[in-house]
């Protein structure tokens, strides 16, 4: 016991050794550098023109209908051609995982549709171009994770981006099963996660989930102006 106390005391003494006062020249150098260093622009530029949302909503519904019918044609095929052409092994039927069209506080008009086939996901998420010049963004959806509390995350990679969200950046939409009006959208990886991990779509979703859990809260879903529909 004495040894442990001695050790703890020795560690405390050793850690307390020396001064931590920052020399003024260090502070001056930082403040000088800051004058000529621009701040990075945040990905999540605030949505400024809410009137735009209602203006775009009919167009969004039409666009969604077009996407949905195109996806249906591709996934279910026309006249028996397409899927299953090789006839080798029967594959699980594609089913809707989720789709939605909504205005998200930070990102603006978001439309997405994800089809699940076995363990894989296909689909697309689009963020419309905004009147402040941000967007459009397109994300190819490739993977999904569902939490115990019913949150479905659908992730993928940006295929059409801009200077802030470049192609190849991971992106995801999260929706809550049973709630047609809650969702969240985000891009990138949580800080501290190695860049290599982001090449794995599902690992990136896991990293985000872990990031939020460590912070002691679940995924921050917002109530939407719009809605989400879930598959079976």
């Amino acid at each position, binding site marked *: 016991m004495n*040894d442990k106390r*001695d*050790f703890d005391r*020795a*560690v*405390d*003494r*050793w*850690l307390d*050794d*020396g001064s*931590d*006062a*920052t*020399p003024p020249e*260090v*502070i001056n*150098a*930082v*403040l000088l*550098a*800051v*004058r000529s*260093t*621009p*701040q*990075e*622009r*945040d*990905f999540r530029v605030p949505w400024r023109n809410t009137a735009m949302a209602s203006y775009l909503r009919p167009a969004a519904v039409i666009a969604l209908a077009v996407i949905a019918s195109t996806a249906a044609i591709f996934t279910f095929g026309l006249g028996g051609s397409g899927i299953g052409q090789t006839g080798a092994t029967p594959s699980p039927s594609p089913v809707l995982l989720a789709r939605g069209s909504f205005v998200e506080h930070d990102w603006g008009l978001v439309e997405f549709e994800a089809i699940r086939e076995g363990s894989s996901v296909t689909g697309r998420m689009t963020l419309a171009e905004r009147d402040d010049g941000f967007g459009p963004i397109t994300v190819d959806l490739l993977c999904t994770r569902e939490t115990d509390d019913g949150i479905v995350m659908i992730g993928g990679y940006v295929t059409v981006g801009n200077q802030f969200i470049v192609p190849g950046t991971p992106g995801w939409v999260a929706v809550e099963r049973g709630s047609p009006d809650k969702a969240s959208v985000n891009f990138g990886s*949580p*800080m*501290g*996660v190695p860049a290599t991990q982001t090449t794995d779509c599902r690992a990136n979703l896991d990293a985000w989930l*872990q*990031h939020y859990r*460590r*912070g002691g809260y679940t995924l921050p879903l917002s109530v939407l102006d719009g809605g989400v529909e879930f598959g079976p």
Partner: protein
Amino acid sequence: MDRDVVERARSGDQEAFADLVHQISDTLLGVARRILRDPTLAEDVLQNALVTIWRKLPHLREADRFEGWAFRILVHACYADAPRNRRWASAIRVLHPDVASDVDDIQKIADRDELERAFRRLPLDQRAVFVLHHHVGLPLVAVAETLGIPDGTARSRLHYATRTLRAAFEQARAAQDLREGRPA
């Protein structure tokens, strides 16, 4: 940390950022100095980290989490800059005869030097966890959150660091006992 000052700095106010620098620089320097064991290098790293903090501030979601976020940037700056530095691998502490005036002082200096040598042998990620936990006083869960690593990883890094330091400490004590003719 004043939330309002963080918010203003986040939106590009350089005076607010200067306030933040004055509030947090000593704490950050203390962490860097303890992880790197080199005051000059720690000052360089602090400088880089503070400029990075300024650049990235608009990405900070919650102003209340500024301090942990700043620690994370600092620790990453330590990781980035330490491998380029070789001095700390061979630094030698000089014992001043007037400081070591009695047996207790000699023992304290021996303990400290042994801890210092053992700590320098630790990988930086173990050092970071040890310093954030023992010097800053963050609970392990907060250390893990700050560094963006799982709790178990933080626990294991702390365990290995502590084990190494304790072994060095016990060795120093045993050597001292031997010199003074005390049974081990």
